[in-house]
C-alpha cells in the first residue's frame, strides 16, 4: 500500500472569504474545516486525518466537535448526506420564503455549516457573513438591512442580543433557529417583539448527527425541554439509562478521537449525549446532559428545569457547573451574568422555594461580569468554575 496523500485542512478565514470552502466542497477530496481559534492542536488534527481509511478520503468533510468535553473529536460527514439533509431542512423548516441567512456563529460549527452555508449554497440563497456579537454594530446593521432573513443562534446569545438591540425591532428577519443548547423558551415574547415577522424554531441535534435530529416551531410547545418531532429520515429512542439514541440517514460516517478512526455502521444507534423522553404526543424532551441530571439526597435533580425557573425571574444569562456539598453529595452552582441586583437574587430564591424542593436548589448563586464562552457561542463549562471575578450572592450552608 502506498503512502496516502495528506488531506487538506481549511481554517475558517477571519476575512470571511468562502472561496476555499466552496472549492473544496466541489472537489472530490475529503477536507477538514476548522475554526480559526481552537484549543485543539493542529498536529492532532493532522494525525487524526491521517488515520482516515481510503474509503473516507473522498466525498467527505471533517468538522471538530465543540471540545466542551475537553476531548477533541472529529466527525466525518458525507457531502451527499449533508446535502440531502439541507434539502430536507428546507422543507421541514419551511424555508422557501427565506431569501438570505445571516451568519452569527462560526461556520466551522456544524450547525451553522449545514443550516446556513450548505443550505444557502444548495438553495441559491444569499449568505450574509458577520462577526456575530463580537462586532455588535456590524451585526445590527445586517439585522436592520435584512430582507426575509434567517438567523441561526444559540441560547446564550439571546441576552446579549437583547442588550445590544434594546427596544429596536427587526422586521426583515423571518426565521430564527436555535440549536446547540437549551432553547430560550422564556425569552420568546421578547424575541417576538424584537423580530415581529419571524417564526422561531427549536432545533435539536449533535455533531454526530451532522447535525439535525428534531425540530419544533416555538408555538408548538411551551417548555424549553420540548425539542419537537424527529425530522424525516431520523429515528429516536431512549437507551437503558434514559439516554437519547438516534439513527439518521444524514449522520456522520465516522468519528476520529484519540483512539483513532471508527466508522459508524448504518444500523448503529448513536447517543446524542443527552437524556430524554418521548411524550404522549410524540414530542421529544431533553432532560439534560447526563451531567445535568443527577441524584441529590436520593432525589432526581434536572438542572435545566431549575434554570427554567431561574430564567422566569432573570433576563441576563444563566449557567451552571457541578459541585459537591460538604457532605459529598452531588449538587451544582448557579452562575448569573452580569451581576444581578440583590432583589433579583431574592426573587429567584423565592421562586426556587415556591417551585422546587431544597434538593433542587443550587449550592451557591454566583455571578460574573461575563460568562466565559467557547468560539461556538456555548458557555465554557471548564472556565466557569474559575474563582477569578466571581461574586457569591447566596449559598446553602451544607
Amino acid at each position, binding site marked *: 500500500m502506498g503512502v496516502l496523500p495528506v488531506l487538506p485542512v481549511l481554517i475558517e478565514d477571519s476575512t470571511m472569504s468562502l472561496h476555499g470552502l466552496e472549492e473544496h466542497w466541489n472537489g472530490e477530496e475529503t477536507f477538514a474545516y476548522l475554526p480559526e481559534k481552537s484549543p485543539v492542536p493542529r498536529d492532532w488534527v493532522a494525525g487524526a486525518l491521517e488515520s482516515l481509511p481510503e474509503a473516507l478520503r473522498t466525498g467527505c468533510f471533517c468538522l471538530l466537535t465543540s471540545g466542551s468535553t475537553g476531548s477533541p473529536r472529529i466527525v466525518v460527514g458525507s457531502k451527499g448526506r449533508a446535502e440531502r439533509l439541507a434539502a430536507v431542512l428546507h422543507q421541514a423548516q419551511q424555508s422557501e420564503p427565506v431569501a438570505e441567512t445571516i451568519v452569527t456563529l462560526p461556520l466551522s460549527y456544524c450547525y451553522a455549516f449545514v443550516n446556513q452555508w450548505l443550505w444557502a449554497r444548495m438553495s441559491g440563497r444569499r449568505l450574509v457573513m458577520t462577526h456575530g456579537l463580537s462586532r455588535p454594530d456590524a451585526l445590527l446593521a445586517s439585522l436592520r438591512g435584512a430582507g426575509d432573513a434567517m438567523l441561526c443562534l444559540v441560547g446564550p446569545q439571546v441576552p446579549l442580543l437583547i442588550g445590544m438591540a434594546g427596544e429596536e425591532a427587526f422586521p426583515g428577519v423571518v426565521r430564527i433557529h436555535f440549536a446547540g443548547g437549551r432553547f430560550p423558551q422564556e425569552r420568546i415574547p421578547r424575541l417576538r417583539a424584537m423580530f415581529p415577522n419571524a417564526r422561531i424554531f427549536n432545533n435539536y441535534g449533535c455533531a454526530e448527527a451532522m447535525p439535525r435530529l428534531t425540530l419544533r416551531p416555538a408555538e408548538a410547545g411551551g417548555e424549553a425541554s420540548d425539542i419537537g418531532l424527529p425530522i424525516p429520515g431520523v429515528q429516536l429512542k431512549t437507551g437503558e439509562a434514559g439516554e437519547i439514541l438516534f439513527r439518521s440517514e444524514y449522520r456522520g460516517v465516522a468519528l476520529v478521537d484519540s483512539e483513532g478512526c471508527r466508522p459508524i455502521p448504518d444500523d448503529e444507534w448513536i447517543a446524542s449525549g443527552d437524556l430524554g423522553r418521548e411524550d404522549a404526543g410524540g414530542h421529544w424532551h431533553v432532560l439534560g446532559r447526563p451531567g445535568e441530571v443527577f441524584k441529590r*439526597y436520593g432525589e432526581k435533580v434536572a438542572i435545566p428545569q431549575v434554570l427554567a425557573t431561574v430564567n422566569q425571574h432573570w433576563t441576563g444569562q444563566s449557567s451552571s457547573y457541578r459541585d459537591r456539598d*460538604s457532605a459529598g453529595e452531588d449538587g451544582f452552582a448557579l452562575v448569573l451574568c452580569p451581576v444581578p441586583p440583590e432583589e433579583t437574587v431574592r426573587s429567584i*430564591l*423565592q421562586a*426556587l*422555594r415556591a417551585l422546587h*424542593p*431544597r*434538593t433542587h436548589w443550587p449550592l451557591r448563586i454566583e455571578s460574573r461580569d461575563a460568562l466565559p464562552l467557547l468560539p461556538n457561542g456555548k458557555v465554557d463549562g471548564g472556565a466557569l468554575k474559575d474563582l477569578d471575578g466571581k461574586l457569591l450572592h*447566596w449559598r*446553602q*450552608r*451544607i
Partner: protein
Amino acid sequence: MTNLEKLKDLVIDVFLIDPAEFRLDLRRDQVDTWDSLGVVSLAVGVQETFGYHFTQEEALSVQSVNDVIAILSRHGIGFDAA
C-alpha cells in the same frame, strides 16, 4: 448587628422565607422549607454565625426560632430582645 438580627438573617437565608414571615415563635411545622436538610443547614449556619456547634440531639430538638435562642442562651450567647 445584634444577635437577634443575626439570627433573623440566618433563618431568612436558610429557609428562604420572606422577612415579614420571621417571628420568634415561628415553628418548624409552619415553614415548608424547614425540612431535614434545612435542619442541617440551620445548624451549620448557627456554627458559622455564633460559633456554637449544636449537638445532634439539640439540632433535632429545635422546633422553633425560640428553641434556637434557648439553646444558644444556655451556652452564653445572649439575645436581649428574646
